[in-house]
């Protein structure tokens, strides 16, 4: 299995192998310097492969775990139109998970293994999904803020140097953009609704704002991997840069919503030409990442349950396929 190569770089290379490695590295360096694309069969440094595999699989896991807080409201959606939109959205997320697992598989790791790692608690996913979706307005706030932040993060990834990842991101971003509009529309409707609905919308924005800002990752001076990712043309902008752009967009859009952001310190810095925001609780971020969020155990258990309950179905499908192949061979 190719994934084992990650750990087993030979210590001693023969002269031919050394030459191949050097030629590979030269090709890789040229592709990166030309801002062109690396494809699955191309030579790539093991660290590049590892970084991508980690990032893409985490992204896939986030899509899959991220289905849960929203699926939680499918059966209770307050109108049939909203129910249809929400179903379609959660279904899109399963689709995103599928593209991303496929992109990650081109790096030599099977989807089964990635799923195993997720269920065993060995893999990470976006920690924001460890917060509960407690009201219908959360469907709006998740769409507007969480998908909004995801878009800011992901649009630059459409140009990521690894071909399968960049291409998967193009389609994902289009759908995410749609999701963000849907979230915005939910909040707009609530904000223009009854006082109770407006209160529900404001409460959801208050709860999701800070976690959404933290989705961009730790501040630049505390983000050790960012620099290398940028040198490899995987990442294009720093965490703080993206966060600042996001704040700038939200500050305008929240006015249209007739709601407020729970942050007194938002301002545009004329000197740096950047948007600034109030302090974020990075200790909470680290706690949630470390498994102490309100829903960490619940989210993983739900995934594990779906996986375990479905084992007999997957076995049946595999066995049926085997028997069919056998029949065809005999015929």
């Amino acid at each position, binding site marked *: 299995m190719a994934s084992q190569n990650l750990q087993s770089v030979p210590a001693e290379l023969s002269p031919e192998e050394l030459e191949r490695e050097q030629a590979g590295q030269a090709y890789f360096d040229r592709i990166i310097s030309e801002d062109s694309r690396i494809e699955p069969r191309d030579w790539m440094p093991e660290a590049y492969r590892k970084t991508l595999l980690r990032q893409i699989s985490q992204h896939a896991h986030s899509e899959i775990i991220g289905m849960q807080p929203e699926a939680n409201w499918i059966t209770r959606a307050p109108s049939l139109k909203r129910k249809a939109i929400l*179903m379609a959205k959660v279904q899109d997320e399963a689709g995103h998970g599928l593209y991303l697992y496929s992109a990650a598989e081109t790096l030599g790791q099977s989807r089964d293994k990635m799923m195993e790692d997720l269920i065993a608690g060995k893999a990470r996913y976006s920690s924001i999904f460890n917060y509960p979706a407690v009201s219908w307005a959360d469907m709006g706030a998740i769409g507007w803020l969480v998908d909004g932040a995801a878009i800011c993060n992901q649009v630059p990834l459409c140009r990521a140097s690894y071909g399968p990842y960049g291409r998967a991101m193009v389609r994902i971003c289009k759908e995410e953009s749609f999701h*963000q509009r849907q979230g915005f529309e939910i909040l707009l409707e609530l904000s223009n609704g009854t006082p109770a609905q407006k209160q529900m919308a404001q409460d959801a924005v208050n709860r999701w704002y800070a976690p959404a800002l933290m989705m961009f990752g730790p501040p630049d001076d505390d983000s050790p991997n960012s620099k290398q990712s940028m040198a490899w043309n995987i990442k294009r902008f720093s965490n703080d840069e993206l966060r600042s752009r996001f704040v700038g967009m939200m500050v305008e859009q929240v006015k249209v919503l007739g709601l407020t952001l729970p942050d007194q310190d938002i301002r545009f810095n004329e000197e740096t030409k950047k948007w600034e925001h109030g302090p974020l609780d990075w200790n909470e971020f680290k706690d949630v990442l470390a498994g102490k969020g309100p829903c960490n155990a619940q989210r993983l258990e739900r995934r594990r349950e779906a996986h375990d309950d479905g084992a007999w179905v997957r076995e049946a499908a595999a066995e049926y396929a085997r028997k069919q192949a056998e029949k065809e061979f005999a015929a």
Partner: protein
Amino acid sequence: MTAPENTTPEHERRNPDFAIEGHGDISVGVKGAGASGDGSASATRITPGNALRPEDIALEIRRGQVKPNEDVAEYALRIGDDSLILAQRLGHWISRAPELEEDVALGNIALDQLGHARSFLTYAGAAWDKSEDDLAYFRREHEFRSAHLFEQPNGDFAVTIARQFIVSYYQFELYKRLTGSSDQTIAAIAAKALKEVDYHRDHSAQWVLRLAGGTEESRRRIVRAFKLVWPYVEELFEDDELTTRLAEAKTGVQPSSLRADFDHLTGAVLQEAGLEEELALERIPQSLGGGRQGKHSEHLGYLLAEMQVLAREHPGASW
């Protein structure tokens, strides 16, 4: 859809990283739709192309172009309720399916069913000046007209597949005939639904074959599943005074007239799966039914409680 006025800041338009379609103009693109209530202006239009949408039917109703008579409305309510209750059941699978592909597939089927329900309920509601949501969220249990099969719990994946297998073959035969209904709206909804239900048949038949021919465990489960849901088949094909009148008016069909084709086509799949003898379906006692008259099993109350809770907390609110 009117073109949204472009308010994207210049620096974002020039920067390809932030110029993804529909992103920068979000506030304007959505504002118009939310305020006008015109379905065709919605940013969340989810049916592609020129396919018939519930919003189109609602528009025709508002313009006074279509209005069902009492019989047709009652009939549309039955069919719509079947789909709505099933969509509610299937929606629960999303994020819980055995494979991601099935999260997508069951989600798709649920969405199709919900779409059919919305169209039929919108049309039915025109007779009583009620919207699809009035009918879905503000009727009580005994006012629902769905057959018992649709409210049966999901059970394991085999139960869901067995239920889906019966439903999709039944709905296919029903919609096939309704495309010839003398009621243009019923015919149009059926024409759209027919194409989708055809895929549902394929999906469920493939799974019946796989589960029956897969492992011992899967075979045991699909056999048990069919025994669990088959008692609710007869009710689908029962005629009554309403269907007799509708069949005479050529707006609807007698359910009993669908039975032979249903038996023939489902029988072929069950035979290929090698299940016919083991199931001995003809010996499974058939439940009395009563759903069309609003008599339901114990399951529907819980399903409605969950579906309606939020809408009823905020009566008169719009979402």
